[in-house]
């Protein structure tokens, strides 16, 4: 995605290896370069980066508000970049909705009218759209506020209206542009919780933009870190935290409360290591069952490590990590726990890859692949199966 004069030239120059600063000196801004992302259905995909990193631009290419200079956006089997303006508007009104940083509520419409806006654009009759708007507002906890005006609501409530407006259209894809950034921390947390709560039942596909890594870690099934218009890393929260792709990502993760992000599964060692050791009470630990019995606590793989400190401190036996069947799959030793806090590269041994928690391959995938300028030519020939879309910026 290139802004400025003669964007096509800039794309060619990028393909030839020019970097962003060179272009900027010439008055063109390459906002998003070589960004390929793929979002699966039902996933919360977080794009994280500092301001100016191109994340908002990337988001706006996904619903066609901005058209990529090069590359494609494929959504639900359709190439959005090739749609006519009219068809694109139809897709936006029915399948993609958006929540904005500063809420973007229409001040001249009541809460209900705001929530019903998307439906109004679709041409849904008044009675039905009000009914659906009522439902959406109820879902976001605003029952009883329908007749109020946006300026009578607090920031958090306003954003709930924004969310209700996005949900009311029943779109499959929800684009959230720093939606919680303007809220104060407590409200932000509430909203995050509510979003996660809603997501449990609604199972929307969400692309969430934030500059707050904590938020990214909390919400994101998958996180893309952007810098200077390029994606520097895509992975799960642990991946980012534990295996930062470079110093930039690492420095980014410095302030993250790792104890809440890292899970037992991420730092555990093989349970076999415990076998043969002696418990404080003198018992030998010979089998995994012994281990489970002797361990100060048995936790699931998803347990954040913040919950492991107390058990670790009361016993020399590592905390046991069990799978859903109750079988011990790993152990967390106190020293490892501490090592994990000192962010370096995750301790002596690379942790076992986290088992896939994602659902089985979706029958329908939302994949946004931002091909960079260099790959531009290849993008359309991408071998992605039908149902995937690639987008280039």
């Amino acid at each position, binding site marked *: 995605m290139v802004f400025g004069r003669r964007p096509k030239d800039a794309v060619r120059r990028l393909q030839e290896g020019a970097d962003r600063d060179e272009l900027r000196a010439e008055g063109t801004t390459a906002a998003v370069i070589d960004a390929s992302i793929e979002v699966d259905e039902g996933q919360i995909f977080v794009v994280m980066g500092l301001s100016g990193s191109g994340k908002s631009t990337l988001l706006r290419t996904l619903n066609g508000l901005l058209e990529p200079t090069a590359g494609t956006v494929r959504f639900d089997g359709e190439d959005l970049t090739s749609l006519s303006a009219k068809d694109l*508007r139809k897709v936006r009104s*029915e399948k993609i909705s*958006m929540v*904005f940083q500063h809420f973007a509520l229409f*001040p*001249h419409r009541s809460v209900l009218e705001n929530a019903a*806006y998307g439906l109004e654009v679709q041409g849904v009759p008044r009675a039905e759209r009000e009914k659906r708007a009522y439902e959406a507002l109820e879902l976001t906890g605003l029952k009883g506020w329908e007749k109020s005006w946006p300026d009578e609501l607090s920031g958090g409530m306003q954003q709930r209206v924004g969310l209700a407006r996005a949900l009311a*259209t029943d779109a499959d894809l929800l684009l959230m542009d720093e939606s919680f950034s303007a809220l104060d921390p407590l409200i932000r947390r509430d909203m995050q919780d509510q979003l996660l709560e809603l997501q449990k039942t609604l199972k929307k596909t969400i692309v969430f933009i934030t500059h707050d890594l904590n938020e990214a870690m909390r919400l994101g099934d998958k996180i893309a870190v952007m810098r200077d218009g390029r994606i520097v890393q895509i992975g799960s929260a642990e991946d980012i935290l534990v295996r930062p792709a470079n110093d930039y990502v690492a420095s980014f993760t410095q302030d993250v409360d790792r104890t809440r992000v890292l899970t037992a599964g991420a730092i555990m060692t093989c349970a076999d290591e415990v076998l043969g050791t002696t418990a404080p009470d003198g018992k030998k630990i010979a089998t995994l069952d012994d281990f489970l019995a002797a361990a100060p606590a048995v936790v699931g793989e998803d347990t954040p490590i913040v919950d492991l400190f107390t058990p670790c401190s009361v016993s020399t036996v590592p905390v046991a990590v069990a799978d859903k069947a109750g079988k011990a799959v790993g152990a967390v030793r106190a020293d490892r726990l501490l090592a994990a806090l000192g962010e370096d590269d995750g301790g002596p041994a690379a942790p076992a890859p986290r088992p896939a928690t994602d659902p089985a391959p979706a029958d329908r995938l939302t994949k946004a692949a931002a091909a960079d300028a260099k790959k531009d030519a290849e993008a359309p020939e991408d071998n992605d199966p039908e149902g995937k879309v690639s987008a280039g910026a």
Partner: protein
Amino acid sequence: MPRIQIGSWASDAVDWLTNNAAWLFDFVTHVLNGFYTGIHAVLAGPEPLILAGIFAIIAWWLRGLPAAVLTFLGFALIDSIEQWDETISSLSLVLVACIITIVVAVPLGIWAARSRAVGGALRPVLDLMQTMPAMVYLIPGILFFGLGVVPGIVSTIVFSMPPAVRMTELGIRQVDEELVEAAEAFGTHPRRTLFRVQLPLALPTIMAGVNQVIMLALSMVVIAGTAGGGGLGGSVYQSLSSVDVKLGAEAGLSVVILAVYLDRMTGALNQRVSPLGRRALAKAQAALGGMKFLRWKPATSLATVGVVVLALVAGGMGYFGKDSGGAAAGNDGHGRSISLGYVNWDEGRATTFLWKEILEQRGFKPKVQALEAGPLFAGQARGDIDVQSNAWLPTTHEAYWKQYKDKLEDLGAWYDKTSLEIAVPSYMKDFKSLEDLKGKGSTFGGKIIGIEPGAGEMKILKDKVLKEYGLSGEYKVQDSTTASMLAELQRAYAKKKPIAVPLWSPHWAYNKYDLTKLKDPKGAFGSGDSLHMLGRKGFSKDEPLVAGWMKNFHLDEDQLTSLENEIQTAGIGHEQEGVRAWLKKNPGLVDKIAPSSHADYAKGKDAGKAPDIGFPAWDEGIATTYLWKNVLEKRGYKPKLHNLDVGPMWTGLSTGQIDVETDGWLPVAQKQYWDKYKKDLVDVGPWYDKTSLEIAVPSYVKDVKTLDDLRKHKDEFGGKIIGIEPGTGEMKRLKSTVAPAYGLDGFQVTSAGTSGMLAELQRAYGKKEPIAVVLWSPHWAYSKYDLTKLKDPKGTWGAENHITSIGNKSFPKEFPEFHGWLKNWKMTPDELNSLEKDIQDAGKGNEDKGVQKWIDAHPGIVDKMAPVK
């Protein structure tokens, strides 16, 4: 640095547009005029108080009860101070201008907001429109659109457009981009985004722009007044130009009431039409308690019902109360409209309203307009004003006259006792003459407060008067305006401070203040101007009757002063009543000034009688006979004309077949007939005595002055004298007496008749050949050619003839009235010559038209020739 001729380019462009784009301007004028007339008709229809009631309901709807009460009181006050009509005119003008401005400006603003290029291109244009002084384009506006409301509307649109465009652009740009993006993100069509999101949110700003438009439009109304826009602007302008504080205060107050009303209403309109405004209003009202009824506003539907009810009442009253309209007062005009313009000086107002009254009595529909000299001349040059009554020529309005004289007609001066002078208050006892000013510069602060720099008097004052009296270094003439000069005079006069101002007589300042006209012993100011009536080009052709009246119009000093006084007494807005009062004291004056061409000719006593009038085919015979035919017809006679040779005519007269003829040349030329038939005839009485018989030669034949000379130059003339009909007295006299006395016997005297003689004369004259013709006076040939009457020192042509009317002896009994008229009838050589020429110009068969034209140009002539009691 070479001179860049921007000014002349602009002037050329204006000329070019005036000449080539007239259709466009006419179209615009037509549309705007129609628009204005429509709105004005609606607003001016209802009774003032009912319309005030409608305004009050609107105020109630928009702002609540107190505003409604104040509105009603305000408009009632306007009605009370007699500014209602003006206010309605101004309101109509403002409404038309604002509606057009908004219809154009809002889309333009939207376009500018959506396209940077348009916005950028528009900005300098808007700057130009906003900052260019309105007076600069008002004059071209007059050239394009004529006088009246249209240039006012156009200037107002130009002036008030920029804020509307800017505020619209700003309003739309100000709408949070995220909101627009949100609308887009939900798949809203751009047009819908504009109408459902951007415009509603920009509406408060746009309404602020509309408010600005209305305020600016109202401020332009005053300027439009100087271009004949009328309304309150006209009142304000009138008060300015005559330092009429009373009128100024009233008109100014009306402007203020109108402005405050429009301002508050448009401000409040925002709260009614824009959702955001409604929100803010609801909030504000929720916050207030108590006295709720003051803030209670009727719902829109209720207010509409109220307005409709009052409108119906107004309509009903208009329908039933319609007066049947005065009976047609006269019939010369047949309702044709004549627009009279004047510079708002006393003598201008006086004559203009006098003429308005006169023209109304004569069945015209005159309109009067006070204007600045510039717009007045420009408008008249364009044909918008038919007549202006107080052009000061040749000095004061010289510049305008020079510029526009091709497009104007001078209808002549009607007053010439004017003078230009420097005046000082008479409490400055030592100053009696311009010479007294010398060395006293410090008394006056070295200043003479002048008038408009373009005025002729200023030029004379600066170029001549100061120099001749040696005041050049000592005094500085300050450019100003007449109004400012007069205000300055009033200020100084009130404080008894020294002041010297250029002034002119007649001027009302001399009545209001005790002033000394400084004597001008060196005559540096020159002789005074005359006050001229100027017609637009073609006016005397279109309205020969009126032009004729005006050409003969004259007022003396007493008349003018007394007329001005009556008008002054009647007061502003009642000028015509003053005129009527004055006319009452001057009975018969209207008939004298504007003798009606037909309608009100009283029938003669013998009306219906049909005298048989004979006439020879001689010019004066034709002329006078047709003149009398017309006069008699106006008096109800049915004259029958008989064109006869001289012999048969006299015979007819003697037998009574012919009752009368007007072309008897006695005692010489037709002596033989008279002698023969006189027992059956009466000599009614001569009407012309400056006749002579002669031989004439073109004056380019230099050496021939007398009949003796003719003989000496016989060869040059080919030995020929071109004669007329052989039987006439003159031919006989030539042969029997004249020729022998001067030895002209050798000349061959042709006898081809009068017309042959005249044709020969014209032919020779064209080739500058010598020719000698038998001629007589009066004859139009003397006005057409430069001829020398050959002197007859021996008096051989005999005693001079007079022309007399000859009647059958029964004529005095049968037509006593006609006989009396003929008996007292006289004509001057000028009258006869001009009559002959008019008939000649009208062409054969159109004698009546020529006569009518001449009668029109000689107002009162019918009453003079054929007086009835």
